[in-house]
């Protein structure tokens, strides 16, 4: 890459990059901890022991994050919830990525009327209260993780589609696309083999910006009781349980809430930092 912010705000750029590194490390640490911790801990996620309910967090007593109203170990539950939250975020982001890149690349590549109609549709979709539609879906159909993956992914592709379209328009004027067309490569093969790989950099940026949105969305649904269902759990579901017990056992709220907050904060900083590097024009300073 070229030098990112030139000489305009060097100090800010360095600060941003250092922050990006810290955030990346923090996210890695959380991811590793959530896998290793659940395996290494002697407690299980579902094991109920009523004689140990509402135990405060203690390093010596075995329950590092304390226990919940049913005596379940909160450390393991928080880590398991983090895993599920990560899982949903990654799968739903993939869904949104596939839709967004395909849609944006087709609109940008074919241009003209097709492009105009497709982008007008995107504009109209921006005004849609999708969250309410997803809740409607959750009411109407059996709540399952698969439905959540698809529903959440299917509504978060608008930004990606817009960016990919713009990038495709500038890519399709390049010589290698003309060359491919001249030797008779079909339009869809050009999009798949020559345009899509060149979108990688910008797509990575928007993936990092999409993941926190999706996490927010999933935890929002789970918080309301419309997302991940027992016996499975996610950070949103844990925060929701914590809220209902926060006067009796504030740790039930604070631990999952901090995990969620740190993850979202780091992902947003990471996405912002990467955007500054890859896409300086759209950086909002």
């Amino acid at each position: 890459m070229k030098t990112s912010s030139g000489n305009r705000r060097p100090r800010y750029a360095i600060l941003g990059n250092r922050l990006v590194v810290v955030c990346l490390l923090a996210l890695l640490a959380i991811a590793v901890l959530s896998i290793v911790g659940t395996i290494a801990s002697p407690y299980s996620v579902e094991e109920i022991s009523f004689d140990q309910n509402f135990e405060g967090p203690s390093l010596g007593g075995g329950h590092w994050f304390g226990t919940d109203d049913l005596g379940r170990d909160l450390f393991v539950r928080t880590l398991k919830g983090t895993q599920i939250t990560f899982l949903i975020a990654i799968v739903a982001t993939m869904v949104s990525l596939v839709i967004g890149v395909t849609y944006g690349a087709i609109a940008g590549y074919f241009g003209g009327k097709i492009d105009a109609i497709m982008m007008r549709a995107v504009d109209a979709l921006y005004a849609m209260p999708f969250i309410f539609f997803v809740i409607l879906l959750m009411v109407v159909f059996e709540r399952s993780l698969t439905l959540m993956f698809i529903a959440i992914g299917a509504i978060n592709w608008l930004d990606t589609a817009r960016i990919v379209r713009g990038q495709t328009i500038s890519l399709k004027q390049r010589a290698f696309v003309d060359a491919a067309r001249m030797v008779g490569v079909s339009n869809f093969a050009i999009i798949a083999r020559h345009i899509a790989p060149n979108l990688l950099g910008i797509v990575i940026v928007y993936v990092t910006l999409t993941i926190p949105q999706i996490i927010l969305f999933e935890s929002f649904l789970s918080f309301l009781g419309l997302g991940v269902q027992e016996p499975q759990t996610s950070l949103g579901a844990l925060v929701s349980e914590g809220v209902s017990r926060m006067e009796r056992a504030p740790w039930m709220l604070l631990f999952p809430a901090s995990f969620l907050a740190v993850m979202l904060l780091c992902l947003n900083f990471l996405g912002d930092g990467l955007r500054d590097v890859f896409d300086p024009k759209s950086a909002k300073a």
Partner: protein
Amino acid sequence: MLRFALLRILGAIPTLFVVIAVAFMLVHAAPGGPFDSERVLLPEVEQSILQAYHLDEPLPQQFARYLRGVLRGDFGPSYTHSEYDVSEIIFASFPVSFLLGAYALITALTLGVFFGLVAALRRNTAIDHLLSGLAMTGISIPVFVIAPVMVLLFAVHLGWLPASFSGGTGAGRFVLPVIALALPQLAYFARLFRASMIEVLESDYIRTARAQGLSTVSIIRHHALKPALLPLVSYLGPAIAAVLTGSVVVEQIFGIPGLGQHFVNGALNRDYTLVLGLVIFYAALIITLNLFVDLLYRYLDPRTRRQ
């Protein structure tokens, strides 16, 4: 301007129609009807219930009936609150949600502009970095994390404010919900305003004004403020949608008897007509408010007016 307004209004109608159609089809694609409960009903009873709710008619006819109702402001009866119509529930709970949202939006806008201005004028100083960090925190941390933590701190431990809406009287009971709802938007407005103010302050006509010896205060008040506010106006649409979504959670946490609480309870109790009605109502609200924002932007920005 008038032509633009008319075109935009005409454009909103098909969008609304699609929303109603999609929501209606989704509900009716549901496996099993709303009355498939554990209780086994007598066939005659079931038949009369189906008739009462017009569920025995073919789907297109049901949709046409529903659409006619919606146009009259009638969303049909609620499945779980048999004594109320969906419209009655919506109109009874809308005012408090509206107040909450309006307060939150006003708070977010005024404080967001203030902090954004401070950050723009003290660019790249410690204050700017602090505010940028806080803004990012505000954007990242979800309402349902901030709100309970605030309740824990200000209501449970310090006892300054009521923990729930029904537990307080007067303005005090609005304080925590409004702050919780406003914070993410406040952060967004501040970031947006900082960026647009910096851009405006770097433009040529501001440099000219400065060269003529105008004071900073005068430059901002007479020349920079209005153009710098424009991006905020265009963000108002998404902000309104975000506040509406956020209010669903905030009403749940503080026990505010607004639209959002009915929506969540309806969703949990599988009250199909209530949820369907509320989805349509929310969509109509967002589409209408977006329309107003578009017109406002058009009115405020002379460049778009001339086209």
